[in-house]
């Protein structure tokens, strides 16, 4: 078992190295300094900026230095002031730098990460929970009424729902739920935009994006879970259970659900990294300062260090979650372990 985990980890290393390589290459295709400073920058400013980021060094050097920053978790660091008494009296000195953002003065990637993770999670985690619950229930119902009207209705709705762009849901959702509803009820139930921390504020700011996210994901998930259920229901042990005389409901909830859990949980686990990243579109539209929005902002403001680091971190989280998923799958399915 441990050899399996170790082997997976070892194999992920060249993959991560490749990701970083790809990322760094892509971001340097357009000169990041020129992109940031614009066309009218002076020669000295250009050079200064370039050196401050180390972009004047050869690519290989930059590559290894970046890896070093990743491995030492430098992206978590927050500017730390230390007041030291000097001859003039009281000059603040920055002790640890972290990686500074270009467009946001004085802020580091660490700060951005720390501040944006909670807003992202407060949308993605509840969305995942809702989607999971509702989809599984619908899938069970579909499998139960398989072939009959409720099943067909649900599946047709799923396909219809899948054919509309995510954006359209967001736009209409915002319009109807936030705007119109507020007018009709004459109170601000759903915030049209924005975010404030705190559990009390959650429903106001986050519930709508969560609902939209749930509705969109439900189409795909329901179909997947239903397929899993259907496949399970065809298995011999179910037929045996029926022959033994179990009621259909008991079969469904006890036998099928248990065995269907494995592919379901595997799939849920594979969506873990997206939990942290947050939905870029939702955050952009509802003006929620989460990770996705941070990434988007950094791309549009040509904030090179932040973009580079955020994507590298996301990719790292993604790889870790893939390994976790595989490990979980190996735990559950002994056939995988032996290979």
């Amino acid at each position: 078992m441990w050899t399996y985990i170790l082997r997976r980890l070892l194999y992920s290393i060249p993959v991560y190295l490749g990701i970083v390589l790809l990322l760094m290459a892509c971001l340097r295709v357009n000169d990041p300094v020129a992109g940031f400073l614009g066309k009218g920058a002076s020669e000295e400013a250009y050079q200064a900026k370039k050196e401050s980021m180390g972009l004047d060094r050869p690519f290989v050097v930059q590559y290894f230095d970046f890896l070093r920053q990743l491995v030492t978790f430098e992206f978590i660091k927050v500017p730390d002031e230390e007041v030291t008494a000097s001859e003039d009296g009281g000059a603040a000195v920055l002790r640890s730098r972290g990686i500074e953002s270009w467009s946001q003065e004085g802020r580091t990637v660490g700060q951005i990460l720390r501040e944006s993770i909670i807003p992202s999670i407060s949308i993605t985690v509840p969305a995942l929970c809702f989607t999971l619950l509702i989809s599984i229930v619908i899938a069970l119902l579909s499998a139960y009424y398989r072939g009959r009207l409720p099943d067909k209705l649900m599946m047709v709705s799923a396909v219809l729902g899948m054919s509309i762009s995510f954006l359209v849901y967001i736009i209409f959702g915002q319009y109807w739920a936030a705007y119109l509803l507020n007018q009709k009820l004459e109170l601000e139930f759903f915030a049209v935009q924005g975010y404030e921390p705190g559990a009390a504020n959650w429903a106001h700011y986050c519930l709508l994006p969560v609902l939209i996210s749930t509705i969109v994901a439900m189409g795909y998930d329901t179909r997947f879970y239903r397929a899993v259920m259907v496949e399970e229901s065809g298995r011999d042990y179910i037929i045996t259970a029926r022959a033994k005389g179990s009621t259909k409901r008991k079969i469904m909830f006890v036998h099928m659900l248990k065995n269907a859990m494995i592919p379901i949980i595997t799939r849920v686990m594979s969506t873990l990294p997206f939990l942290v990243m947050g939905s870029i579109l939702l955050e952009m539209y509802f003006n929620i300062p989460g990770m996705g929005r941070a990434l988007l902002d950094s791309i549009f403001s040509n904030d090179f260090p932040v973009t580079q680091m955020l994507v590298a971190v996301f990719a790292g989280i993604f790889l870790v979650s893939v390994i976790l998923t595989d490990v979980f799958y190996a735990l559950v399915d002994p056939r995988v372990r032996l290979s």
Partner: protein
Amino acid sequence: MMRRFFRSRGVRKLVRDRLAMVALGVISIYLALFFMMWCGFLVEKEETFERVGANTEVGFFEEPTIEQRLLYLEFYLDNLYSAADSRTPEASLAAIDLYGRLPTLTDPDAVIERIDPLWEVYDELVELYEDDAFSDDPESLPRLEELEAEAATLYTEPEGLMGRLALALGTDRQGRSIFLRALYSIKIAVQIGLVCALISVAIGTILGGAAAFFGGVVDHVIVWLYSTFSAIPYIVLLMVLAAMFLGSAFEGTLVPVYTAFCMTFWIAPCRVIRGEVMKLRELEYVQAATAVGFGRGRILLKHIIPNTTHLMFINFSLLFIGAIKAEVILSFLNLGVKNEPSWGVMIKQATQEVISGFFWQIGAATVFMFVLVLAFNVLSDALQDAFDPKHV
């Protein structure tokens, strides 16, 4: 080769599925429209930027409000009036062409003479409206209608189907025909879908087949390659790749879109084909081919790959949908289609309009897209049912 394909069991099963055939019919219609536009019929790119009417005109089944009607009137009257009143009246007047609706009067003085009294009526009605007295006065509505009838006589009727349909779905905030833009977006969407899906499936099949068949180093490299690409969240990958082209010579063309999509979408077919080829490789007819003395390349190309065509079709249709939906998102973020209308561009522009209750642009884009995507969803489901029963 086609004859062999059509005889297979899967195709017969597919044909029997009536819903799938309807979907195929719908897709064919879209493809036909695409071809016509590609050859220059129906509507050309420049025409989608022309003004065809007033701003934010509503479509055919919505009843415009009084305020809207007054605004439209103002446009139609002012359009001619300011042209006739300009420094080059004849030229300006002659240049007016609302997609086939030309001024009926060519003499500037005649235009001014006709419209002056109309302005008076217009001003009165506007005053009434602003004083909230419009509904009180029983005369106001008939007067408005009369005014509209008068204004209508100032323009010729458009000829041809396109001309008459131009206003069917209303206009956007710059007076451009929503119908024409939505129609043209079909061309863009199908173009992007076809190019990206074809190339992605081609790349994915070649790499996946080679990886599974030749094994060893080749397999390790290709698996490493797609693990790398798939570790970056797909939207982020699209964005980073598209952003690469900002400021380059290709900005504004569809090249960034094609590149971003192909480099992201090749992964799925690669995985699927690789899995299938690994399965097929062990089958006995492959061994028989070796026994007969065929070289490995020939076996891969002639024996194995043809048995994956059903998966290629399925992936093609799934990627087509993916490309259309991803284009909407990219265009929304200003990284996708730039210099021509597309559904993504329309939706982006529509976000402002929705707030004021104007749904025509977003509605048109959504519906046109919905039909195509739905058809492909139905088709790919049917394809999977017919050819790959173990799918999810």
